[in-house]
């Protein structure tokens, strides 16, 4: 954005590389769409407890409740400006079937008082975006996306699960990329036996099919392994808390994927390390670390940004896989993979298909990252024609 006091730029004024890239990115409708979807998803995860009507871990006796119809027109055909729901009463205890009870309307109200929570982990409040008027007294809960086997609100759980699933992607990719850049940079810069050893390790890691390696690591680092006890300073007989399991999973996922990055970075470092400016830096007495970090690695940023964006889904899916197989995030903490796990039983799947809704969220997230990554790749491509 240009300052108003400056002269208007000449029509062919040179643009900075970032301006060019941003311009291209903003013109790519798909990339823009992807970015916007991600913005909404991450915001809803950050403010999950404001947007969700209930605490994600509060159970109720309305198990496998179908999603509510949001209505404007009541049974007599009268239109109401304020949307409302009808209560669903269980008609068949055995088969857990629900019928609509139209005797009373429950209006949806906004900015209602609900269960207390801490907004952003700081402010104690009870204010939630929406809820049912008089719902608490009548025992009526609103289920936008239905409820699970424990009568917990799926909408609230999906939003809170997004915190775990979405942040694992970002933290995991940061671990991977830092490791990859470090190893690749050192390997390419020093060459010789350091390079040889590091690249053999990379080769080893890359020859095990990803999920097998992840599962083996998870099995080795299960709950009471001595290493984890030492790492988390656990008492004898104490088990990992949900936060610690989260850290463990991020670490495992981050430690698995850096091989490919390291290899590419190494190649790029090899290509530039004998250029004049690097030699100049060396002859001026710059330290090895400074040369690697200040002069060599910035050359690889384009690659890193694009491949990181395209690789985030792999981490989200990694968490999904682990939790789905029952070795990831543990109940009652919600995560998208763990929630899908409930669909494993055929009976639940057919009688309450709405429990698959986290899958839709995973899909949309991956979709958006792919769009954004693709757009970034095109925008950062120096060979692209304007």
């Amino acid at each position: 954005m240009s300052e108003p006091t400056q002269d208007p730029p000449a029509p062919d004024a040179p643009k900075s590389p970032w301006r060019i890239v941003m311009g291209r990115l903003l013109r790519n409708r798909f990339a823009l769409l992807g970015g916007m979807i991600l913005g909404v998803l991450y915001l809803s995860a950050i403010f999950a407890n404001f947007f969700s009507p209930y605490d994600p871990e509060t159970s109720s006796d309305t198990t496998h409740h179908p999603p509510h119809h949001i209505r404007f027109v009541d049974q007599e055909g009268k239109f109401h400006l304020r949307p409302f729901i009808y209560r669903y009463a269980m008609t068949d205890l055995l088969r857990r079937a629900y019928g609509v009870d139209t005797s009373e309307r429950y209006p949806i109200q906004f900015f209602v008082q609900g269960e207390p929570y801490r907004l952003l982990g700081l402010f104690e409040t009870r204010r939630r975006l929406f809820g049912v008027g008089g719902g608490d007294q009548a025992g009526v809960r609103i289920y936008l996306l239905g409820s699970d086997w424990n009568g917990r609100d799926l909408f609230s759980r999906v939003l809170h699960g997004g915190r775990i699933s979405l942040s694992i992607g970002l933290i995991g990719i940061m671990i991977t990329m830092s490791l990859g850049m470090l190893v690749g940079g050192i390997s390419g810069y020093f060459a010789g036996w350091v390079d040889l050893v590091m690249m053999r390790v990379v080769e080893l890691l890359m020859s095990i099919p990803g999920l097998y390696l992840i599962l083996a690591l998870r099995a080795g680092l299960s709950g009471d392994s001595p290493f984890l006890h030492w790492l988390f300073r656990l008492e004898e007989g104490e088990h990992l808390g949900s936060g610690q399991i989260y850290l463990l999973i991020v670490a495992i996922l981050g430690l698995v994927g850096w091989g490919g990055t390291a290899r590419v970075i190494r190649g790029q470092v090899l290509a530039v390390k004998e250029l004049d400016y690097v030699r100049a830096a060396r002859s001026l007495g710059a330290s090895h670390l400074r040369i690697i970090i200040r002069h060599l690695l910035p050359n690889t940023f384009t690659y890193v940004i694009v491949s990181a964006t395209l690789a985030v889904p792999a981490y989200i899916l990694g968490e999904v896989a682990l939790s789905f197989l029952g070795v990831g995030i543990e109940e009652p903490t919600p995560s998208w993979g763990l929630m899908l796990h409930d669909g494993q039983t055929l009976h639940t799947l057919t009688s309450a298909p709405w429990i698959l809704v986290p899958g839709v969220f995973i899909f949309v997230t991956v979709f958006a990252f792919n769009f954004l990554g693709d757009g970034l790749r095109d925008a950062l491509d120096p060979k692209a024609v304007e």
Partner: protein
Amino acid sequence: MHYFILRRLSHGLLILLGVSFLTFFIINQAPGDYLDRYRLDPQIPKHWIEEEEERLGLDKPWIVTYFLWLKGIVTHLNFGKSFQYKEPVFEILKGRVLNTLLLSFCSIVFAWVVAIPLGIMAGHLQYSWFDKGSSVVAFVGLSIPNVFLALLAIYFAAQTGWFPTGEMRDNVHWDGFTRWQKFLDVAHHLVLPTLVLGTAMTAELMRQMRGQLLDVLRADYIRTARAKGVSERALLFKHAVRNAINPLITLFGFSLASLLSGSVLVEQVTSYPGLGRLTVRALFDQDIYLVMASVLVATTMLILGNLMADILLAWSDPRIKIEDSLTE
């Protein structure tokens, strides 16, 4: 050529050795062992547990067990017995590996048969509605997670009754089937897992095929061919597609890794009796030798797959001489 293959295979053996050491180290970080559940059971006599400990070698440090295991392989080709099934691990793995190979093979065939023609069409009709539509579909296919797609497939199967909701064959009637019926039954069971596992690869191949074709179509020799009056049809199939398809063969090697990982989840959801499901179980049971064997088998498949892709590439692209890569 022979020398190249030999070299790659011996390299592969070294990798397997490294992988086996790494895996053994990792899974031995877990506390406790296979016998834990028996130790908790007061009805099981203590001396039995001690005997079992000694028999299974659980009383020694892991590095000793590792080298004993390695020695067994080198001297007797003995990969150890499964604790759980009390059988040599390869007896258990054999059928499972074949099942996973069958599933992967079907997915690969499905992906290539569907993706190549669609990719060629999309590239040929660039910017047409077909092109745009197929690229959106490809994006969807790439983004839909295997687990979710598999669950949707099972839901679909349960609702329509058109397909079985799990397993690999009809276990009730299997023995009464004729050979032809058996074939049809397995094929019927394979449809959904194949579609689920093959979707992502189809999408990826389609995008690559389109991109490569567009690159090739811009090349000078295509213009030359067109100038000398080659028909559009021959131009596309003889000159462009033949050249555009080579990079896809390299992709084949990469896709194997994701296929193997993907099949773990697909097998889990569709209760397909494959390698992935067996490995997950074995990991939970701390059935160490079974885990070792399945990780090694999966790694071997990956190595052989990559080798096969290289050989295929040399065969399909005369410009690539395989001896050249000796000096890499």
